[in-house]
């Protein structure tokens, strides 16, 4: 069904790539700079400025001392890296590593569950059957619900006399410290975001040409073989981007545990909640330090993910060989039409899905 579009695209794409190294002439370069400047300005304002400002803020502290009249001494003092060092010291250090563990735990468990369920959902949604439209829409409903609202829904389900306890026939106090509160967050998060992975993978599935499956059938490949050798490799670019987005999102998880279980609960306290807690008590320096540490953690994880698995986030590796990750992002290889059609970025995948 979608086979014609990518194949037709091929000749147009090849020359573009060979043009890449070619220099722009001066006029074109100036025009490009001019055209890009509004974007760069906006990016600088909304991305660069807050980051630099937060970094600066994290080196200061304010409002910690009272004067003789009981008024807080105004102004902020430069404390260097003290805010960062404090994070790892004593009680706060214990709290930090606990939150660090929780954040990582939620990320690993939730993303794995969501990926498995999401792919399963995508495979179901991809099948042609009666009422497919309704199934697709209903699977996407959780994703459309704001996190706080879904947290409130699940809170209602998980309360002491709630539906969850009625179903399992035992009185589990879900919001108390322990594995049960972690489990409640995992269930609610998976319920909400598996459809997101499902949606992106579905878009990827729709770009896989039917001929490949036909060929597999002719060759007598089993269903499992077809799935592992054809579907997975060809859907991998879309899947990796979806998983990366989920990882970045889950590392910042805040509202779900905050509303569903509550603040200051060791079992579900995450790094974002620590930063929030500091900011809430008007200690913006330490809050910025926590936020920066989280920022670095997220950045490192994202970088590692892209390097190791070769996730094609911005679609630059359009011509990269599928499955040829492991740092092969810079290599440009020739490949046959089928591979090229699957190795498209998310944007192209989504467009292909509509074809």
């Amino acid at each position, binding site marked *: 069904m979608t086979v014609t579009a990518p194949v037709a695209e091929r000749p147009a794409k090849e020359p573009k790539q060979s043009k890449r190294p070619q220099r722009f002439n001066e006029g074109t370069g100036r025009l490009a700079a001019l055209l890009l400047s509004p974007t760069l300005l906006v990016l600088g304002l909304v991305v660069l400025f807050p*980051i630099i400002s937060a970094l600066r803020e994290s080196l200061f502290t304010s409002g910690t001392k*009272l004067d003789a009249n009981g008024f*807080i001494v105004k102004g902020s003092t430069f404390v260097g890296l003290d805010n960062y060092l404090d994070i790892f010291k004593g009680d706060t250090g214990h709290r930090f590593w606990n939150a660090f563990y929780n954040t990582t735990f939620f990320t690993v468990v939730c993303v794995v569950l969501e990926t498995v369920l999401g792919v399963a959902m995508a495979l179901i949604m991809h099948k042609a059957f009666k009422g497919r439209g309704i199934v697709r829409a209903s699977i996407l409903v959780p994703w459309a619900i704001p996190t706080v609202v879904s947290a409130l829904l699940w809170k209602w389900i998980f309360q002491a006399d709630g539906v969850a306890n009625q179903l399992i026939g035992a009185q589990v106090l879900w919001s108390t*410290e322990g594995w049960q509160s972690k489990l409640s967050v995992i269930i609610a998060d998976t319920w909400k975001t598996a459809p997101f992975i499902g949606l992106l993978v579905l878009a990827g599935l729709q770009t896989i040409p039917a001929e490949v499956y036909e060929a597999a059938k002719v060759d007598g490949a089993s269903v499992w073989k077809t799935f592992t050798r054809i579907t997975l490799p060809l859907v991998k670019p879309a899947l990796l981007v979806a998983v990366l987005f989920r990882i970045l999102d889950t590392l910042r998880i805040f509202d779900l545990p905050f509303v569903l279980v*509550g603040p*200051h609960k060791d079992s579900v306290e995450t790094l974002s909640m620590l930063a929030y807690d500091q900011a809430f008590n*008007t200690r913006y320096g330490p809050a910025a330090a926590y936020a920066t540490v989280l920022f670095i953690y997220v950045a490192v994880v*994202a970088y590692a993910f892209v390097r190791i698995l070769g996730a094609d986030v911005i679609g630059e590796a359009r011509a990269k060989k599928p499955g040829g990750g492991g740092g092969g992002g810079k290599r440009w290889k020739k490949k046959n039409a089928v591979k090229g059609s699957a190795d498209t970025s998310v944007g192209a995948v989504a467009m292909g899905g509509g074809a």
Partner: protein
Amino acid sequence: MAVAGSLALLATACGSGDDGSSSGGSTAGALEGRGPITLASGKDTSGNLQNQLNAWNAKHPNEKVELKELPDDADAQRQQMVQNAQNQSDAYSVLVTDVVWTSEFAANQWITPIPEDKVPDLGKLVPATVETAKYRDKLYGVPITSDGGLLYYRKDLLTAAGITDAPKTWDELLADCQKVAATPGGKGMNCYAGQFEKYEGLTVNFSEAVNSAGGSIVDKDGKPDVDTPQALAGLQELQNGFKTGAIPKAAITYKEEESRRAFQDGKLLFLRNWPYVYSLANKTDGSSKIAGKFAVAPLPGKDGPGVSSLGGHDYTISSFAKNKATALDFINFMASEAQQKDNLSKTSLAPTWASLYDDPTLIKQFPYLPQLKASIATAQPRPRVVKYGDVTAAIQQAAYDALSKGSDPKATLTALQTKLQSLITP
């Protein structure tokens, strides 16, 4: 990622309270200037606040008050007020502040002192409520609404068990539970519940237990004083309640509404809650199984009547506001007997005007007023400290550990005392 990086900045960089007009911070201290002002208050759920403002505006066409509605959630209200103050914006003139925020706001000089002689009705207000508006013996606001805990009890079951009066002590309460459990109607009933989830309500309930046993969390001079035998007795009472099952296990997840539902479903003999439960539990539309079957009493204590924590709101003046003279007049208007009476009868919010609790027509409308008066008259404010957010979190941590994990109460209080000492600077 950028969002994560700038999380902390939201509070400082993205404040939108300032509408471009110049800061009025320089006039802090002097209550001068007349003209239009604003009132920053939590969501006006009853709609009566706007009515009151209309009444004021009709009389003062040149000094109109505009309502700036803040979110329903108290934390969100505080956050907006803090942002507004940090931007030194004059967008909010009069702030409706929770009684526990006074110290923090005053110490940061976000709100302005009000000379006591400028509030002529101060003497008519319940003294305990006026204390909530003070920081270091200086008045920073006027209490307009109050709130105190009440003991709700199943009068029908107590009568059936031959008990005529509500319990005045914890021992009496537990004994009453035993007696009721022996009657046919008392089968499967839980004895007592309050609010024990890890949130502000736990601070309220823990403080009440400690105060009711003769202890305190922070003493009169503002120093932590929680490592005492009295405080220990209070904490142990709650802990034993959970251990013996007098307090149901599920109560560790109760906030106000969860505990109200348990009481309304007829599962609880005694409930500690605020006055708002009264009319809801008396609804005859089927939502409550105990309409007309319960009564209220002041909270019980260790050896006599208990001590409630104080709720409610003070009206304070932002240091950065213009037209502070108008703001003060407006606060005095809201504190007046006529306005408080009107507000009570329309919203059922507890007033601070002492004599209203003895008004026969109001008592007819709100039969719990005499008990509420007793509750508020002897109530203690929660710790009045600058770092209230940290202090209440520390209290919740200690109490929650003791109640949910059964940690050693003595060691818990010793640790809490140390923690509070580091948070409360003399």
